[in-house]
């Protein structure tokens, strides 16, 4: 059967990829993806998508099925950079904490730097990706549409064909990336979770929580218990539901915010763009300088 031939090629490819990349979560050598069933709350009304915002799928897309399988992977080699950048776009998420945003629509305006994303991924010690079957989510990007059409042409149709397709597990090449999350760690004491996102039509079904819990599980297995996540006001509810709390020691979260606009700009200092902020480096002090007694403070 041609369908079987295709899936056998792709599964052997997975093993090749696996061999090349190594076990990402060495604690969980996952050769395949973990399957989970999620349920949509049928009583929850699906909000009308904002016509001017970028949506994943058509405006009149059918709601996701009541119960559907999703596939969770912790293997970084399962990530297709192009697909990931499309997920960032459809979730309206930016790698920068304060991205340039169109004031009318709220859409992130800046383009994603793929090179930087690749570097960030290669230094994230935990990468969680969630896939689903393409038929459960309308695909908008052209490459995937062509891919799906080709696959459908080659697969035998009919009752058995459909049955095989519905029970066949997916792999990164024929699954649709719908969720992502990553964590950066020093592998000893601390870790930070960044960029958790789920495709908008599938939000509210518990996928995000699964991503965060999987990342936390991988980290705690490695003995890292100090796990932080930066969240905006909206994201705070989400992380609270995942088991995160305000710091028990009462520490204050601070971010470097010395910008061109809020400081006297001398003109010869280093300026770095981070989203919509133009960060200004601290003034250069030429060492060695004489020791001076200032107010006593703890480091």
């Amino acid at each position: 059967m041609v369908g079987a031939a295709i899936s056998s090629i792709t599964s052997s490819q997975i093993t090749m990829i696996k061999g090349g990349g190594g076990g990402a979560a060495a604690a969980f050598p996952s050769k395949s993806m973990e399957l989970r069933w999620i349920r949509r709350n049928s009583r929850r009304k699906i909000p009308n998508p904002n016509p001017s915002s970028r949506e994943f799928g058509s405006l009149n897309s059918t709601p996701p099925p009541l119960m559907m399988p999703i596939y969770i992977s912790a293997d970084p080699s399962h990530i297709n950079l192009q697909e990931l950048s499309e997920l960032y776009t459809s979730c309206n998420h930016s790698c920068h904490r304060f991205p340039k945003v169109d004031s009318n629509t709220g859409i992130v305006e800046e383009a994603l730097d793929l090179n930087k994303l690749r570097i960030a991924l290669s230094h994230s010690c935990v990468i969680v990706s969630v896939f689903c079957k393409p038929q459960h989510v309308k695909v908008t990007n052209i490459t995937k549409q062509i891919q799906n059409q080709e696959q459908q042409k080659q697969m035998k149709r009919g009752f058995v064909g459909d049955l095989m397709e519905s029970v066949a597990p997916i792999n990164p090449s024929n699954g649709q990336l719908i969720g992502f999350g990553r964590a950066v760690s020093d592998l000893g004491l601390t870790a930070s979770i960044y960029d958790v996102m789920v495709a908008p039509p599938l939000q509210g079904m518990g996928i995000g929580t699964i991503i965060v819990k999987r990342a936390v599980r991988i980290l705690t297995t490695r003995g890292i218990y100090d796990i932080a996540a930066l969240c905006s006001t909206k994201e705070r509810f989400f992380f609270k539901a995942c088991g995160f709390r305000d710091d028990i020691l009462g520490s204050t979260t601070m971010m470097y915010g010395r910008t061109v606009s809020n400081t006297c700009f001398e003109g010869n200092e280093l300026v770095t763009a981070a989203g919509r902020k133009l960060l200004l480096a601290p003034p250069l002090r030429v060492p060695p300088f004489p020791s001076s007694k200032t107010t006593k403070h703890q480091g």
Partner: protein
Amino acid sequence: MLTRNVAAPPSSLCPILSHDWHFQVSDQLLFPHNLNPNLNRATRKIKGFRLKANFWESIRSGILKNNATQIVEPPSTLEEEEEPVPEEFVLVEKSQPDGEVEQIIFSSGGDVDVYELQALCDKVGWPRRPLSKLAMALQNSYMVAALHSVRKFPGQEGNEEKKLIGMARATSDHAFNATIWDVLVDPNYQGQGLGKAMVEKMIRTLLQRDIGNITLFADSKVVEFYQNLGFEPDPEGIKGMFWYPRY
């Protein structure tokens, strides 16, 4: 020199990470690499290339997944990644009337003895953490800045006393985000602007590498210290949350 270096040579990348991975699947490697478990001793550049090659291949395979064959490119075509170049310079120099000279030296090469660090943490009153975890964290931090005090005595050539008096470290994904952890200065040397100099140098290095999201979690007593350095508390409602296991 009276110091003992227990920590491995400066490693501000996370190449240990990749090394860990392909160390585990040695029977499945496609690339003719020499799996040398003592890779730590190799020079940084070679280590970076060799270890990154595997990961690059895996990421690229994801992009080329429709091809049945693997494309193996020579490492020279990989992008050169910028690492913070370790710096070392004298911050302060004090001379005593009897000829003794004390220098405070800043270094960002991660040259921190983990036992000395533990002693310093005790001195400032921090809770103890397992030494192995501390060493691991130092190895895998993006940047480890240290302050050492070197005292040279007159007449005793080559006899100097060097001790660790301050440290700060930052973890990062090398592209967008960085978090500064564990900033500490020996209580006897506080109040001189040393902590400020360390953190400023860190920020400058991070900004030079185009890493714009610099975060830290400050104890209530030091919030003002960081505000003076340009940090804002809870900017635009952004807060940090921590995971707490439910028992």
